[in-house]
């Protein structure tokens, strides 16, 4: 859970940084996409690591949730919470929405099978993204999913350190802040693009 999560958390930072090339103009993002496709070996190496991480993350997540639910035996009739954050308590749910989002996102921009009105954008990634986010519903779904990713990361990134034994009470608070800031940076970085398209800054 922690190791696959660490890889995925690292990936979203790289993905987000690449996406910000949208703001450098049509040339920059299309050249970046071109470069990725020219280095097919590197691309597929990263993709295979990603696929393995995602599958491992889902599998361990399901196992964890089922085992924990069984161990709890229903819990008390009146449940009280003193310390558990909203992020920590909603990990399986935010995770499931993010998974649904990933599936949609792949169908949308990787396989280009949905929500593009059947237009073939070829190598023009810039035009595809602008067209993809011109639908308010699609852009909104992206933004909500990314806010949930922020919530997911705010607990996950800090938990990685606990699982690896690299945390104590002095560092827990600091790492929680690091995780929250990381989550917001990722989410706002990604959200800036559909938001810019919706507000007409990118066209």
């Amino acid at each position: 859970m922690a190791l696959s999560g660490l890889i995925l958390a690292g990936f979203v930072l790289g993905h987000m940084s690449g996406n910000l090339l949208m703001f450098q103009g049509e040339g920059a993002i299309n050249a970046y996409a071109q470069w990725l496709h020219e280095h097919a070996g590197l691309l597929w190496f990263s993709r295979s690591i990603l696929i393995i991480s995602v599958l491992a993350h889902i599998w361990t997540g399901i196992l964890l949730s089922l085992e924990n639910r069984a161990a709890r035996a229903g819990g008390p009739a009146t449940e009280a919470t003193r310390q558990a954050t909203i992020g920590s308590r909603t990990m399986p749910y935010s995770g499931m929405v993010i998974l649904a989002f990933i599936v949609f996102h792949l169908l949308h921009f990787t396989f280009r099978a949905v929500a593009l009105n059947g237009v073939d954008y070829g190598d023009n990634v810039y035009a595809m993204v602008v067209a993809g986010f011109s639908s308010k519903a699609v852009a909104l779904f992206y933004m909500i999913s990314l806010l949930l990713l922020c919530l997911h990361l705010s607990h996950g990134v800090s938990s990685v350190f606990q699982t690896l034994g690299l945390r104590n009470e002095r560092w827990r608070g600091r790492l929680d802040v690091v995780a929250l800031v990381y989550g917001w940076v990722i989410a706002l970085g990604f959200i800036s693009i559909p938001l810019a398209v919706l507000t007409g800054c990118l066209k």
Partner: protein
Amino acid sequence: MVHGKSAHDGETTLALKLRVWRQSRGVPGHFEEHALAAVPTSASFLEMMDMLNEQLIRAGQDTFAFDHDCREGICGMCSMTINGMPHGPLPGVTTCQLHMRNFRDGETITVEPWRARAFPVIKDLAVNRSAFDKVIQAGGFITARVGSAPEANNTLIGKVVADEAMDAAECIGCGACVASCKNGSAMLFVGAKINHLNILPQGQPERDRRTLAMVKTMDEAGFGNCTNYGECQAHCPKSITLDVIAKLNRDYLRARVKEFFSSTGKPSKGGD
């Protein structure tokens, strides 16, 4: 303690509505509602339960079974979930050290046993915590020569290590960590026990074996997994911190790596 009326003149008393869990072994349980009047605010929660049981006896009814022993906060026997909180609303105390001044007159108080698959209900509020004993049997000990006491200054222990071990050794094994955990995980308990022994010189010879065996036994007992909610730390009557879980994870990782690369004592058949 004088029951039924206050031990001190003019002391405030409470009239309470109690919802208490009633269950026999192997049968589904349910809540029973009882009214209890004239509870002195100086009474401990267990003394309040005693008053309830006396009232039930006078009415010819069955009493509620609940665990208790020292009643001074060090034995780890009391095990009640009060209004959803193991050991009740006051952090850092056991049920026996929780006093009725922490409740309001007319309040409805819900009293349940520890809820976890690994702690089956014996009767009413008493649960079977022998899963903890099994974890201790798996590695919560050191092997030492018994007989005459060793010279106290033979093995010197630095203050920092001694303090840390003592902090972990504060765990009384009550099970509030499991009961408060939304995953029914016993990591705080096992972490405390492992840390207590693993950082002391006396615990070194069996350090890796202890860590692996205790974690394995914990998993087999049906406890859940840690997902870093932190509820255990917030409900622990001895305020054991999540530090012991991080260190348990570290020691476990270390022991697993060492086990994986342990020597077989023989050359490999491949022969290079």
